């Protein structure tokens, strides 16, 4: 099971991972709009984070389900 997952955010319009940023150390804040380097459209940072969190939640739930299934199999094996 993965303990840490790094998610890259995607442009909500064209799904590109490249954004136009003022400098390399720029860290977007809530309320900011960031430009996609591919399609040039403006993305609402809060919305991008909401989508990323939803994807993280789905991924974590999937992993927990897998672990529960594995655990159930272990239990069945022990009580055979």
């Amino acid at each position, binding site marked *: *099971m*993965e*303990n*840490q*997952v*790094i*998610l*890259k*955010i995607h442009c*909500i*319009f064209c799904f590109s*991972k*490249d*954004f*136009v*940023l*003022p*400098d*390399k150390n*720029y*860290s*977007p804040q809530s309320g*900011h*709009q*960031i*430009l996609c*380097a591919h399609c040039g*459209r*403006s*993305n*609402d*940072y*809060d*919305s*991008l*984070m*909401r*989508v*990323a*969190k*939803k994807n*993280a*939640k789905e991924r*974590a*739930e999937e*992993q*927990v389900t897998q*672990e529960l299934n594995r*655990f159930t199999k*272990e*239990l069945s094996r*022990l*009580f055979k």
Partner: protein
Amino acid sequence: MGKDELKKEREAVIDSVLIFMNDEIERHGALIAHIEFSFEAESEDTVAIIKETGISYESIREALNVCIARNYVTHRGLGTGKYGGLILTEEGQGRAVSVEAAKHTVPVAGVEGSRVQIGQIHNYGNAQIGDRNVQNVQNVLNSILESIEGADASDEEKAEVKGLFKRFLEHPLTQTVISSATTVIATKIGVS
């Protein structure tokens, strides 16, 4: 009209459809999963969107096909027709919000082509993923524990299973996802 222009026009219709849906959701003060739309011919939502945007039904249908393919909207259930029983997804709402926000704010600009990794989501700490399912998980874990206790097995076998259970409960991701439930159960079997 050229291919690029047609694509651009289709993207604009997608924006309009998603903004219409998001406006309805916000007007009702509801969550995206709670408001269902039907864009079947002559349905209430179809009449309303055509009236509001002036876009043809054919264009709306084409845009909806793209929205479904890109997961901007999704079907809530079966048997409601291709354009019925649709709900907005986080992605769809995000696009609608982005389009509206772009009308009022200036985006951050800079060096083109910068690749950025924004935010790392760690499966540590007390962030609890999910809400209404914790009680169910606690019930399941309780049942497992009771089954172990009541099983027709030797004390050694029970201790072995409890050890596995303990390992599962102590795992960082288990703690993160179902923290409150695991804490209760862990206390019951003496996991500090």
